[in-house]
């Protein structure tokens, strides 16, 4: 069985970065930056999985602000399961398996 890390990586690598998902994401509307949308979450997940640099507070905010509502997947041409990618990143973060030391704080626009 693939490890959680591999499962998240395989799923995230399927993303085409088309952005079709962004219009329906409730958090993107009020979040501080693109990381508060599905496409941003997938790209942050890939960076976190690559583990090259310590992760910023903002990257974690992107991961923890996802509602797991799955609206994005309904609009995605290849049905990327963003909610599951996010959940796996949370697991890895909670286990201390990511290069992430900062506390998590969610920023809201306006």
């Amino acid at each position: 069985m693939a490890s959680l890390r591999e499962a998240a990586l395989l799923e995230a690598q399927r993303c085409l970065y088309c952005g079709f998902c962004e219009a329906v994401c409730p958090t993107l509307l009020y979040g501080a930056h693109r990381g508060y949308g599905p496409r941003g979450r997938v790209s942050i997940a890939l960076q976190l999985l690559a583990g090259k640099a310590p992760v910023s507070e903002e990257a974690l905010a992107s991961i923890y602000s996802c509602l797991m509502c799955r609206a994005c997947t309904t609009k995605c041409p290849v049905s990327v399961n963003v909610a599951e990618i996010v959940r796996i990143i949370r697991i890895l973060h909670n286990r201390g398996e990511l290069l992430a030391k900062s506390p998590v704080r969610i920023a809201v626009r306006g």
Partner: protein
Amino acid sequence: MDINSILHIIAENTLRTGLPLPAPRDIAYHWAKPLNLPRSGSMFLYTGVMYQLMPYIKSFVAILERFEDSRLAKALRLAASPKLTGLARAAIKPERDEIELAESILTSIARLLARAGINYAYLYEDDMYTGVILYDMGLEEAFQEHAARVYERLRRRGAKKLITVDPHTTYMLRHVYPKYVDGFDIEVVNYLELLDEALAGRAQPAPRLWSGERVVVHDPCLYARALKLVKQPRRLLEHAGLTVLEPRRSGRMTYCCGGPIEALSPRLAGRIASTRLRELREKAPVIVTMCPICFVSFSRVAKNETIVDISIILSKTLRQDEEA
């Protein structure tokens, strides 16, 4: 407040008490005491304690909201975890009328099931929270441990089939538990599915005791996108005589209530809830919800809208029906 501290309170509480927040243990089954539901059988009502937790969640979120980004939040971050949980216990003060409302929702559900001719037993002290927040927040080990305990209780009670009453518990038991708990083979049916089936099997049309009043429905994300539970609530409401209106985004394209991140960012959750509430309000002032998380989320930001759980509106029919 720092998210890790909040998650810590939740995980620690769930493993120690079975509930995610400090609350009396009997909140799970207190509502059922006057009903004398049978204790043994093979099909059990399983509330998952989500409705019962509503007043506690609301109070907890109000505290977090007050302290979001404050000095106290910083202090809390530094506090050791037992102290943190103690603080939460002292601070969470649920409103009496909200507890009564949650209990009346469950009573309505129990009555609706009985009225539809469905025979079931109740789990009482074995009616447990599924650990949905642990699962969603990636507290994987804590979730696994908790889920195994829940299953053990269900197994000991001889449960073959469970009737669930909210989207999160339904999803967890139907799709997540079988992956996490060895040997999990319990069938899971949602009460709206059961009521809808019973309605279809009725020899006579159900009594229409509402006369075309207009309501707008809000589909919970999991019912609409993961559990294919969209038509059943509409059929039930229409059979009761209500006029069901659809918001701009409904069914599979529904829009989240913001509730799932209420504990992590009350502010962001509130913005999303207000946006959705405005959209619903465009259609009708009476908004029907089917999930305790949606209910809490909308009630936090509602002004002159009426938020009502589907079981209350369906059982109001029932009560008039019985009086007639």
